[in-house]
């Protein structure tokens, strides 16, 4: 029985372009306080466009209604549990939005004098210090814009170090359970990727690893806990195997929400890692971004960090550009500063023990959901779960229902689905990460819903295959979208207007 939602009317809304009517405006500019300049004279006729064809022409009311209506078609953390595995969809504190808009911070120009940027620099310094403490590493760069960007930065750091030792080497080892960004990153950094098969416990197999590690191996990219939510218990041995061969260990820190305050990568052999501040540190995902992929390193990698670096010179912060060994900038300016402000606010609000408590609650919640669901879904691997639990759809697949179908049906129960079909080593993975900010009531509803769907799969698989039924948009034809890509609106394209 669906307890969590009821249908209600939501407004239809055409595309902005379909709402447009010639001459309609939603803006007003101040009067020009200087003589108006003729564009064609100033820029030349050839350089001056006549108009922006088909660009929207709407009123201010049109705009607010348009986006308000669209927003009501969307699910979000503010509406309910969002157990998207590996994405750590925790509550995004609203105070962080406020402080990120503090005038002196939001309007700081990256090229304004250092004497007028001390506040921004202090924020970055404070965050670097906190992240070093949390990870147990020696230095942090806040420049990368997201996790994948941090991976890229981290691998370039490894390459630079090895190069400085005479040989950048050729290969990066990546467990087959790794997130797609890992192998993609290795390629972008000019390495060949060698996939390491996980063992029957879903973790890195020491023997397989030892065989794979040779003088051509630059590094292993390991995720810990891995994408099954399982802690790599032999992580220290793993590190040793690579270090013995002069290779390094990169840790994908996307799952740090399972470790903060409990254990520190710097203490179990990691040389370099990234953090997803938009996951572990609660900065909002905003429909796909922005994020921040801060990278933390051990001493031996510090000289290679991208610049500029913060430096304290007689009680003032300055930017140090004198970094002979740096890999160079990975992004203009100083990274996603606004995201950094939010992450620091989150750390300040929690404090050391608050962060630890959050980790424990995250692991508690994941194990609670796992316990409730194990009778009904096949757990992918028996190993203990940390912050997320991964099931396989093997039982449901017998009835012709796959993880993607279960996900769609879960929508009817009022939840955003878990992560579907990842990691790839699991047959039809259901990857569930509740996070610490969910209460028991919401988790019980989630488990009830998934259990109820499991029963529906046995009773009436056909019904499940056509879900969802209660959304204003029924199941979407993704195949069709890819077969004949329509990636932008065009004037003629107004057929379905009425229906929308």
């Amino acid at each position, binding site marked *: 029985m669906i307890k969590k939602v009821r249908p209600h009317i939501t407004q239809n809304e055409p595309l902005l372009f379909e709402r447009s009517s010639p001459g309609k405006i939603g803006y007003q*500019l101040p009067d020009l306080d200087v003589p108006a*300049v003729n564009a064609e004279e100033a*820029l030349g006729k050839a350089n001056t466009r006549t108009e922006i064809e088909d660009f929207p022409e709407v009123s201010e009311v049109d705009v607010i209604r348009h986006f308000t209506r*669209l927003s009501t078609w969307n699910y979000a953390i503010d509406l309910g549990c969002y157990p998207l595995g590996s994405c750590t969809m925790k509550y995004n504190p609203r105070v962080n939005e406020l402080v990120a808009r*503090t005038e002196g911070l939001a309007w700081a120009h990256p090229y304004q004098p250092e004497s007028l940027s001390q506040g921004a620099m202090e924020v970055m310094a404070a965050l670097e210090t906190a992240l070093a403490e949390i990870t147990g590493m020696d230095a942090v760069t806040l420049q990368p814009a997201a996790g994948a960007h941090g991976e890229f930065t981290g691998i370039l750091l490894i390459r630079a170090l090895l190069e400085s030792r005479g040989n950048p080497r050729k290969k990066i080892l990546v467990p087959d359970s790794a997130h797609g960004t890992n192998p993609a990153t290795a390629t972008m950094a000019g390495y060949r990727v060698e996939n390491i098969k996980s063992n029957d416990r879903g973790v890195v197999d020491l023997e397989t690893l030892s065989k794979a590690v040779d003088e051509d191996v630059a590094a292993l990219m390991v995720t810990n806990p891995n994408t099954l939510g399982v802690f790599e218990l032999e992580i220290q041995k793993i590190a040793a195997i690579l270090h013995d061969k002069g290779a390094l260990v990169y840790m994908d820190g996307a799952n740090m929400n399972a470790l903060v305050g409990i254990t520190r990568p710097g203490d179990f052999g990691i040389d370099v890692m990234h953090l997803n501040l938009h996951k572990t540190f609660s900065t909002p995902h*905003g429909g*796909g971004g922005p994020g921040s992929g801060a990278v933390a390193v051990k001493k031996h990698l510090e000289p290679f960090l991208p610049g500029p670096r913060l430096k304290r010179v007689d009680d003032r912060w300055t930017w140090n550009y004198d970094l002979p060994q740096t890999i160079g900038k990975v992004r*203009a300016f100083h990274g996603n500063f606004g995201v950094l402000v939010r992450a620091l606010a989150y750390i300040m609000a929690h404090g050391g023990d608050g962060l630890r408590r959050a980790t424990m609650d995250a692991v508690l919640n994941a194990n609670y959901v796992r316990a409730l669901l194990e009778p009904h879904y096949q757990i992918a691997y028996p190993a203990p779960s940390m912050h997320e639990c991964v099931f396989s759809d093997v039982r449901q697949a017998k009835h012709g229902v796959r993880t993607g179908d279960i996900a769609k049906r879960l929508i009817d129960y009022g939840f955003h689905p878990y992560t579907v079909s990842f990691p790839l080593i699991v047959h039809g993975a259901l990857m569930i990460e509740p996070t610490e900010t969910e209460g028991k009531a919401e988790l019980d509803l989630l488990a009830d819903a998934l259990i109820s769907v499991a029963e529906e799969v046995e009773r009436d698989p056909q019904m499940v295959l056509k879900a969802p039924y209660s959304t204003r948009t*029924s199941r979407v034809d993704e195949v069709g979208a890819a077969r004949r*890509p329509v990636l932008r609106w065009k004037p003629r394209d107004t057929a379905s207007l009425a229906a929308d």
Partner: protein
Amino acid sequence: MLDTIGVPNIESLFQHLPEDVLLHRPLNIPRGKSEYEIVDYFRQRGDENANGYATFLGAGVYNHYRPVLVDTVVSRGEFLTSYTPYQAEISQGVLTSIFEFQTMICQLTGMDVANASMYDGSTSVPEAAMMAVRVTGRDRVLVSRAVHPEYREVLLTYAQHQGMPVEEFGYDTSAGTLDLEDLERKIDDTTAAVIIQSPNFFGIVENVKQAAAIAHAKGALLIFVFAEAVSLGLLEPPRDADIVAGELQSFAIPPSYGGPFAGIIAAKEKFLRQMPGRLVGETRDTNGNRAFCLTLSTREQHIRREKATSNICTNQALIALMATVFMSIYGKQGLRELAEQNLSKAHYLAGKVPLRFSGPFFNEFVAKTNGRGADAVNDSLLQQKIIGGLPLGRFYPELEGSVLLCCTEMVKRPDMDRVASALAN
């Protein structure tokens, strides 16, 4: 909950971890602060930065007015606290807005397709270059020295380890435009792409047609870069380019000490399969209603892994939404009028100061300090609560003593007059 799990306490959920990896002390981070203290802390930090200054800084980060509706929209939890719209049926809000974003970027740039956003302008440049390398099967990249210095630095970082040699070509030292002879000299049939920016870092409008002709003659692609999106309200779109890489910060995205911003990549239809980043496409639901969803993800890392067109996953969606709302509010007329105001203000001030270059410019230009030195001029302006232009010596030794001045719709005439007299003295 513990009973359900079957453990006596939460600690036991961590018992399986090796004893010696456990942190046996509390994190050295002060105990949790109240909301009030946190707000107070950041206000103090903000007060330590520039406040209440008039600014003439541009150089890739522009001081444009942010319509109030922008934050109204992006503050709605439905947008703020959702993630990548993997589940189309409950993500039509975000998907529809991205589809509109892609459309508006195409309309602005004259390209056929645009993606859902990149990290920023600087990272979209190397991504565009890598795209050109995949398309042409060549590996050499030529980049104009008048492209934003930090964009070029990021390009080098990306290129260095992919066997993608990057070479720079110069600018005409009197006009400040592309040195096309130098380009001609350096381009050959191993060149995958020629990268130019317009308005370039000096604020000067480049001749895209000529650059394209030269590139295409050698079978290379032309990559057009923009850092000041407002210029597209007035400037002829780069129809002759093959790929456009740009930064949207000018579209209601706060300077925020350099980020988060939103980059884009747009291109000709035929290069679609080599595009990096997410794409939203139109389709139908089972009831025949128009619907949108992520599409062509076979290009992306989570499917393609080491063969992906890029490793990008999380992008800048919410920031792109800011730009989308901005474009909606200003619209066809407004964006042009806004651009015209920028043009007029810049030319007003430019008319009163010694210019370094003769080329046509939009809202930025390079002024000479005639021996007084950029820092001296800027210091005198700081006394008047004005942040002057960017001293160019930092990025262009040969331009030591010149400053890059930017005039947006936000600068007021009296401040411009102060800058003029500071430079005149």
